[in-house]
C-alpha cells in the first residue's frame, strides 16, 4: 500500500487518521446536513443521504452562512461530527468554527483535493504541518 503526501496551508486542530468521504460539491453545515441523523440532507447535494459521522470529509469550498462556526462544536459535543474537513477553499467560518471546536481543518492544497483523494481512502490529517497522507485501501 503506497502512501502519498499532499501539501496544503497550515490548518487548525489536532492530527487524526480516518476514512475519506469525497465529493466535488461544496459545504455548509446548516444548508447541507441533518445533524441529528448525521447525514447529508440537502437533496441537491452530491452526498445526499450519506453519513458523514467519523469521516474525513473532502469537499470543494465552504458555502452558505455563518452557522457552521457553532455547529462544528455542537456536532463534536454529541459525537456526531465528521472526523476532519479538507477543502480546496475554506472561508473564515470554517476556520473560526474549527478553532473554537479544536476540529481538524486544512485547505489550499497544491491541486484539487477532491480529485486527489477517493472515498474509502485512509487519510492522515496533520493540520499543524498542513500535510495529508493518503493510503489507497482498494
Amino acid at each position, binding site marked *: 500500500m503506497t502512501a502519498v503526501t499532499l501539501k496544503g*496551508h*497550515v*490548518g*487548525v486542530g489536532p492530527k487524526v487518521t480516518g476514512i475519506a468521504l469525497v465529493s466535488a460539491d*461544496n459545504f*455548509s453545515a*446548516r*444548508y*447541507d*446536513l*441533518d445533524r441529528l441523523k448525521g447525514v447529508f*440532507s*440537502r*437533496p*441537491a*447535494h452530491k452526498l445526499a443521504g450519506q453519513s458523514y459521522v467519523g469521516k474525513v470529509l473532502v469537499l470543494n*469550498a*465552504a*458555502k*452558505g*452562512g*455563518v*452557522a*457552521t*462556526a*457553532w*455547529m462544528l*462544536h*455542537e456536532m*463534536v*459535543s*454529541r459525537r456526531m461530527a465528521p472526523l476532519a474537513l479538507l477543502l*480546496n*477553499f*475554506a*472561508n*473564515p*467560518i470554517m*476556520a*473560526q*468554527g474549527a*478553532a*473554537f471546536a479544536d476540529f481538524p*481543518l486544512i485547505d489550499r492544497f497544491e491541486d484539487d483535493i477532491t480529485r486527489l483523494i477517493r472515498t474509502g481512502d485512509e487519510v492522515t490529517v496533520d493540520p499543524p504541518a498542513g500535510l495529508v497522507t493518503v493510503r489507497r485501501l482498494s
Partner: protein
Amino acid sequence: MRLNDVEKAMLAGAMGAPRRIAIEQQIAVGRFFDAEDFVEVGQAHIMADTESLGEAGVAFLERLAQYPENERQVRIPTITDPRGADFKAYKRINHAEEFVALEKRADAAFRALGVLMTDTCINYQTVMAPVKGEHHAFGDTGVVIYCNSVCGARSNYEGGPSALAAALTGRTPRYGFHRDSHRRGQSRFVLETEPVNLSDWGAVGGIVGRAMRSYWEVPVIEGVATAPSSDAMKHLGAAMASFGSTAMFHMVGVTPEAPDLKSAFDGAPPKPIVIRRADIDAFYKQYGANDDRLDVVVFAAPQLSILELRDLASLLDGKRVHESTALLAATSPENKAAANRMGLTKGIESSGAILLEGVCFYQMHARELGAANGWTRLMTNSAKLVNIIGGYGYEPVLASMEACVESAVAGRIRR
C-alpha cells in the same frame, strides 16, 4: 502574528480567562489566513441562535457568564443577529417549549456579557448603518455583504464564536476584507434586464453567487441604470452571500468603491457574464413546484424593513389567509414596535398572518417547526430562504411578494 502590549496582556491572561480564550482562538484563525496583526473593530454582531448553539454552545456561554463582571463584559458595542425563538409569539406557531427554554438561557447569558439584544440581521436598516472605512466584526452573511459593498465598511464573516471573541478583545485578525487588496473585483457580470421586484433581485444574487468559486472572489455588476433601493440591495446581497459564500460585490456607478468599471479592477476587466431575463426566469423555475399544494408562506431572510411591512400590509388589506395555509413574516424588534405604532401589525395580522419579531424562519428549528405544523411546501419571495430551507425537509417555491400573498389567500400556489 505581531501582538501589541494589550494583546500580549490578553494572551497572558492578565485581563481574565474569557479574553485569553478569545484571543487564543483569534490567533489560530489569524495564522490560518496569514494575518500579520490585529485591527481594532467598532462593533461586533453575534449570530447565536440556539439551533446552531445546541446545548453545548449554550453551556459555553453560561460558563463565560459566570466569570467576574470585569472579565466577562464585552469591550465594544456588541449586538445580536436573529434569535431562535420569539418569546411573545412562539405558542402561535407551535414552537416547542424545550427550544424556547434553551433560547432563554442563551439570552440571559448574553445579557450577563453586556451584549445588546438587537436580534436583527438588518442592523444597517434598523440600528446603525456603518460608515465607509469602519472596521467591524459582523456575524451574518447578509450584514457583511451589505456593509462591505453598499456602505464601504470592512468586515469578514465572523461566525458566532468569532464575533464573540472580537467582542471580548475589541479586535479581529487583519485578513480578507479588512485589507484593500482583497476588495478588488475579480469577475464581471452585466445585467441586461431590469429586476422588477425584490425576488428578482434575490434571483440575480443567486445567479451571481452560484458562479463564485470561493469566499475570496469579488463580483462586479454592471448595467444597473438606477440605484436599487436598500431592500433591493439587501435581497441581492443576502442571496449572493447565501449561494456563493460571497462577502462583497461592486455595482458600477452605485457602490462606493466602484465609481466606474476601471476602478473596480486591478488591470483590465475580465470578459463579462451576461444576465438576461431568461436567466432570472430559469432561476425561478428551479424553485417551482409540480402541483399547487401550499402549506406555509414565509417573508423573512432577511428580516423585513418597515417599507416591506408596509407593502405586505397593503397586499393583505381586506383579505384573509386561507385556513389551510399559514403566513409568517419576521422583522426586527425595532421594526415590530414601529409597525405596532403605525398600525401595520394590525393590518397584517387581521388577515390571519403572524408577524414575528427578533427571529428568522430558518434560525428557529425549522425542521421541528415543519413537523409540528405539517408544513412541507413553503413559498417565499426570499432567494436566500429557498437556498437554505431544502436541507430542512421543505419544498421551497420562489415567487414575488404579490404572488405569495395571493397564494396564501387562495390556499394554493398562484403565479
